């Protein structure tokens, strides 16, 4: 088994080498794209090869090590890679979807003269994500985690001339950084409690130490809470989710890769990877489910009222991630990862199709300015339709299998309240995906496309459409890794409702589209609610008022360092003291005589006072 170790080591290093080569070389555009796409494609091939080898076995482990990193007293950390079914699924998604998106962006970004910088960042991102997914210890995972955050910051702010992009990039990096710091504190707690940061050892030791006496489960739940905070930050869940819609400022393939398929799923991977640890803290698991539900409702409702094409997809990503968190929360880790896979396929497809749309409608984002493009852009229309179908989880699409599985798991785990919220979410998802499709592609055309998507873009779209349709195969290895709940005890209502709902939602959307009510302004009394929901439930304004502006005013108040004022005060007083004493030096001889006598009097007075006190 070890001869594959060197192959495994290649997986994260290949994109890293190609990124370095691109950084330091002066290649023509063609060679740049060949290098970039080649490296990620070869990683995709390797992961396919691993899939083929480990197809039958359900519990295999492949490790590789790239050398020691830190080795002091108890802290032994090395660059170890760990491949098991979960990380196999993850590297297949990352490299597969990544390769397709690289292929797509060779076409999309061709005119941009900063292509070299673009592909360097993209390759760096893929290698960081692979490090994250393959890390065998939490510190290397944290390295990948921050690397991914950095690359997303660089790529969001790729078009740096525009002030808006930079602010969006800063916002993204800072909010994920808050989550990362919480996770780092979790790491410290884990290390001080269990003495190791190796993921597998943590699971074993945690069970040994904390399950014995269930009184200090608080420590276990504290660790899980902190890791959850990291996951929430990275996967844009409830408290820290309003950076994702602004992250759409980056190029569309970037949004497809980072903010749909790979980076945002890192949080789910973290919780899935430490599932045994989370089992020790049932209350934290329930919290995960709650966060998932609330986020999915928030995302779905916000997506329903957006007008910007990419912001709709961003909010829909938030809500789908909410589903995955819900699945994790109820203990259905395998179905969460399965939904993650299918979501990667159809969301990447939707983003790339949207990119093609924007590419051909000379960078128009507002959906109400588009219309009737079915005839003009057939490939984009078909792929967009398949994507929306999978998103709405119409039967026989990949989305259908994974979402139904999650809903079934939720019922099996007995959380009926959460189930009803999930079903409502599914209904709204179907509604807004249908609304999106009808508004953009049916009705009379307002803008006529001036450029057609290139061959490489169409190829990527076709492959992704196929995957979204037939990608719904549940990977075997996952089932063994994380226990499944048996889903045969469902009532008929619970079985058939999620299947019928999408059709009702689509017909409602069709009715509204037909009566031209979509583009119209909302009636007066609904105006406030509409604005609230449109701005993502006003989280931006909330954080602005409680955190950003107080911090800003606090710093501005202390702009020139009140401690420095203290030293300037000393400077002034000594200057004034100098003036006081030099006033005595006024050259009067009689005053000098008096000073002599003054000494006598003072000394004598001191003596007398000393005497009297005795």
């Amino acid at each position, binding site marked *: 088994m070890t001869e594959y170790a060197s192959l495994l080591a290649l997986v994260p290093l290949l994109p890293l080498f190609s990124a370095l080569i691109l950084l330091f070389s002066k290649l023509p555009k063609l060679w740049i794209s060949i290098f970039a796409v080649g490296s990620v494609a070869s990683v995709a091939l390797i992961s396919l090869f691993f899939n083929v080898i480990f197809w039958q076995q359900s519990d295999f482990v492949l490790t590789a090590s790239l050398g020691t990193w830190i080795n002091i007293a108890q802290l032994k950390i090395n660059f170890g890679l760990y491949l098991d079914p979960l990380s196999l699924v993850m590297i297949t998604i990352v490299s597969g979807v990544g390769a397709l998106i690289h292929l797509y962006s060779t076409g999309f970004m061709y005119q941009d003269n900063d292509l070299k910088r673009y592909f360097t960042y993209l390759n760096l991102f893929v290698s960081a994500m692979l490090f994250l997914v393959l890390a065998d210890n939490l510190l290397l995972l944290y390295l990948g985690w921050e690397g991914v955050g950095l690359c997303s910051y660089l790529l969001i702010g790729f078009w740096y001339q525009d002030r808006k992009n930079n602010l969006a990039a800063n916002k993204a990096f800072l909010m994920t950084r808050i989550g990362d710091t919480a996770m780092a504190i979790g790491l410290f707690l884990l290390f001080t409690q269990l003495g190791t940061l190796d993921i597998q050892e943590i699971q074993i030791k945690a069970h040994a130490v904390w399950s014995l006496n269930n009184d200090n489960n608080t420590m276990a739940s504290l660790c899980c809470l902190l890791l959850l905070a990291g996951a929430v930050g990275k996967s844009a869940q409830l408290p820290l989710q309003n950076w994702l819609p602004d992250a759409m400022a980056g190029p569309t393939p970037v949004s497809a890769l980072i903010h749909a398929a790979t980076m945002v799923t890192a949080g789910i991977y973290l919780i899935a990877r430490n599932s045994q640890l989370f089992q020790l803290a049932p209350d934290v698991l329930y919290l995960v489910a709650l966060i998932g539900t609330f986020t999915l409702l928030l995302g779905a409702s916000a997506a329903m009222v957006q007008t910007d094409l990419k912001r709709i997809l961003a909010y829909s990503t938030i809500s789908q991630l909410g589903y995955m968190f819900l699945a994790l929360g109820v203990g259905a880790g395998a179905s969460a990862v399965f939904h993650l896979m299918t979501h990667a396929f159809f969301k990447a497809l939707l983003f790339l199709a949207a990119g093609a749309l924007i590419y051909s409608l000379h960078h128009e984002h507002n959906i109400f300015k588009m219309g009737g493009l079915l005839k003009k852009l057939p490939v984009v229309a078909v792929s967009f339709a398949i994507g929306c179908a999978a998103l709405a989880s119409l039967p026989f699409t990949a989305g259908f299998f994974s979402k139904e599985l999650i809903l079934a798991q939720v019922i099996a785990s007995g959380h009926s309240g959460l189930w009803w919220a999930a079903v409502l979410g599914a209904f709204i998802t179907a509604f807004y995906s249908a609304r999106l499709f009808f508004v953009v592609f049916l009705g009379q055309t307002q803008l006529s496309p001036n450029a057609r998507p290139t061959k490489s873009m169409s190829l990527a779209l076709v492959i992704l459409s196929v995957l979204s349709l037939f990608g719904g195969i549940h990977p075997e290895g996952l089932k063994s890794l994380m226990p499944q709940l048996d889903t045969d005890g469902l009532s008929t209502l619970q079985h058939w409702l999620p299947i019928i709902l999408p059709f009702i939602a689509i017909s409602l959307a069709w009715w509204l589209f037909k009566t031209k009510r979509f583009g119209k302004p909302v009636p007066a009394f609904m105006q406030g609610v509409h604005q609230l929901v449109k701005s993502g439930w006003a989280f931006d304004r909330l954080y602005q008022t409680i955190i950003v502006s107080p911090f800003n005013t606090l710093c501005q108040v202390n702009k020139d360092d009140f401690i420095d004022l203290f030293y300037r005060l000393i400077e002034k007083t000594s200057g004034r003291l100098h003036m006081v004493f030099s006033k005595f030096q*006024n*050259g*009067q001889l009689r005053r000098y005589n008096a000073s002599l006598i003054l000494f006598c009097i003072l000394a004598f007075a001191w003596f007398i006072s000393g005497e009297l006190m005795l």
Partner: protein
Amino acid sequence: MIPISWVFMLSLSLFVIGLFGVLARRNLLFILISLELMLNAVVILFIAASRYHSASIANSDGQIMYLLILTLAASEIAVGLSLVVHMYRQHHHLDIDKLNKLRD
């Protein structure tokens, strides 16, 4: 026999009077005069002390000190008066309060 503390009080009071003279007067000559008075006050005490101690230890340090102080007073006044003459020739007055060119 006059108790020594009386003489001590006399010389101390003379000393203080001279001191007051130095402080109060503005004219340089009068300052020199009151300096003389202070030195004479000291001389009285020395003579009295030497007389008082002559019984126990036959030393006449006091008288020698008296002679030394007299010579000092004389030489000091000599130098002082030369400065007074010089000052008068330049300033045409002897008021030392006006002498404050040297100041901070």
